[in-house]
């Protein structure tokens, strides 16, 4: 099946990724660990733009950028430099943003997403390094604001801006692209996607192969899909009414789920880009082979290996390889139990219970997962009981074995049933004789005795079969 793209939709995304796994900011030694701190406590003369301060580039930030470039199948530029993008807004106290312009560190890559019609390539135009601006907080409502509060803790954090080609053909594909990107970045260990501000996206979209409209200020993956659905509908309505789509920038209003035109008075040329005189050029091409060696097995490769090595189906393999932590967890469990059982219990059951509680895989141990799977596969507890055990571990703590005992979840073992059958037959010769003489009802009496002896934990039908088998010997 080939996806026809009947409305001629083209979507491109610009994603800003904050490299919050670095210890320090891009151009100064301020710690990146500001998320739970008081405002303006992780700043210094450099990220405050005080006169006389000079930026010095974080070596590891460049390594991370190259790593990301390689993981996105980009080529890494021979020589590169920084530019100043000039604009007057207090989120950057220097009145310019240090960014890359003519030579982005990485360019011309691609990633594969799960598209409308199977695997689909999305081109990566470029990826460049720049600094994150400060956080602005507007007091009161937008039209009645009393002022703006500025916290520079975020200012100067390292961002990688990843620009895609307009290769996505639906809002769903845009979401899949973001998910794939996040998965790759998660594998690289360059960012913690759960931290506030870790990933932000701007989108551009056109319909019927027409002019593109840019949408800014989208704060979540769900927001991207919603903003695009709205914007596509708006453009189609406009055209149906005989209107035209003009190239413009619109703002996504998350609360109302609509995009609003925002008149921008600044064009590209108004940014007056020029090479940053305070930073020398970088010649990093010879780092590439070394950085390439540090690349981990990436999601696509891991998924293929899981299918091959553990004989998993596509769905399980995909679910288990989206997050590196889950993939590692699965592999540890699969060392101890049948991988197929491990896949079912980790992917279908545990992940569901974790998602429901908004917990990460860290909330459960490999040891406990192995214990649960072993209990089920050894037929000691039922699947229903196993789910109960997982829920109890997550909600109240404790070890699976203890929980099984405390809750009396152990299935009655076969030999206990067998002993009970033998005893029930030996102790009730009259009933046995009656049954053998044709009195069907006597069988129920003997089965009832078995159930009594096992305190009702034996399966009644199983007990009946065992008694029958014994009597017919």
């Amino acid at each position: 099946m080939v996806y026809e793209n009947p409305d001629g939709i083209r979507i491109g995304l610009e994603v800003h990724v904050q490299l919050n796994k670095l210890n320090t900011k891009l151009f100064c030694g301020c710690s990146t660990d500001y998320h739970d701190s008081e405002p303006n406590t992780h700043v210094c003369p450099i990220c405050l733009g005080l006169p006389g301060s000079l930026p010095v580039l974080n070596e590891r930030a460049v390594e991370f950028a190259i790593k990301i470039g390689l993981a996105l199948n980009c080529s890494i530029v021979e020589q590169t430099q920084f530019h100043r993008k000039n604009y007057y807004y207090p989120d950057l106290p220097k009145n310019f943003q240090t960014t890359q312009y003519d030579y982005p560190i990485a360019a011309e890559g691609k990633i594969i997403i799960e598209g409308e019609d199977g695997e689909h390539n999305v081109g990566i135009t470029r990826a460049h390094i720049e600094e994150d601006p400060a956080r602005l907080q507007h007091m009161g409502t937008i039209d009645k604001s009393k002022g703006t509060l500025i916290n520079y803790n975020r200012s100067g954090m390292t961002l990688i801006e990843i620009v895609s080609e307009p290769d996505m053909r639906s809002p769903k594909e845009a979401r899949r692209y973001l998910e794939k990107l996040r998965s790759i970045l998660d594998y690289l260990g360059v960012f913690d996607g759960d931290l506030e501000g870790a990933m932000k996206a701007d989108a551009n979209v056109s319909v019927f192969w027409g002019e593109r409209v840019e949408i800014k200020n989208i704060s979540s993956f769900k927001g991207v899909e919603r903003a695009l659905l709205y914007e596509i509908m708006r453009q189609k309505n406009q055209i149906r009414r005989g209107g035209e789509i003009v190239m413009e920038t619109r703002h996504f209003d998350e609360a109302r789920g609509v995009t609003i035109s925002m008149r921008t008075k600044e064009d590209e040329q108004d940014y007056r880009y020029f090479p940053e005189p305070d930073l020398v050029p970088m010649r990093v091409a010879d780092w590439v082979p070394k950085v390439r060696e540090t690349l981990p097995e990436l999601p696509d490769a891991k998924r293929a290996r899981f299918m091959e090595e553990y004989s998993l189906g596509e769905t399980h393999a995909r679910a288990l390889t989206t997050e590196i932590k889950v993939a590692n967890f699965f592999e540890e469990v699969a060392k101890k139990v049948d991988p197929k059982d491990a896949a079912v219990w980790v992917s279908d059951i545990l992940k569901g219970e974790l998602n429901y509680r908004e917990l990460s895989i860290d909330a459960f141990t490999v040891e406990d997962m192995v214990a649960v799977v072993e209990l089920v596969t050894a037929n000691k507890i039922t699947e229903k009981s196993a789910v109960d055990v997982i829920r109890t571990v997550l909600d109240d703590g404790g070890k699976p074995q203890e929980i099984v005992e405390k809750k009396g979840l152990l299935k009655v073992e076969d030999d206990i049933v067998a002993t009970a059958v033998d005893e029930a037959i030996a102790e009730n010769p009259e009933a046995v004789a009656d049954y053998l003489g044709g009195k069907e009802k006597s069988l129920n009496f003997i089965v009832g005795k078995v159930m009594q002896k096992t305190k009702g934990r034996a399966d009644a039908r199983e007990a009946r079969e065992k008694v029958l088998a014994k009597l017919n010997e």
Partner: protein
Amino acid sequence: MITKEEVEHVGWLARIEIDEKESDAYAEKLNSVLDYFGQLDEVDTEGVEPTYHVADIVNVFRKDEVTESMSQEDVLANTENKQEGNFKSPRIM
């Protein structure tokens, strides 16, 4: 040639208010500065690489090691406009 409108636009980009009279005067002055620099166009630069940096050095980096930040008190020492540890500015959109 720089026009009066361009002067006003550049003024807006720098958030500087420039009135009618001033914009005429600035246009004239800026044009004379541009003319002066225009003399550089006479130099033949065929085949010369652009110079971005006068010092011929590349790859200056620092290690990813944390250094001490300023105290919040010091950070806000130069402003009267503050609230709960933040800088406070007039409303901006």
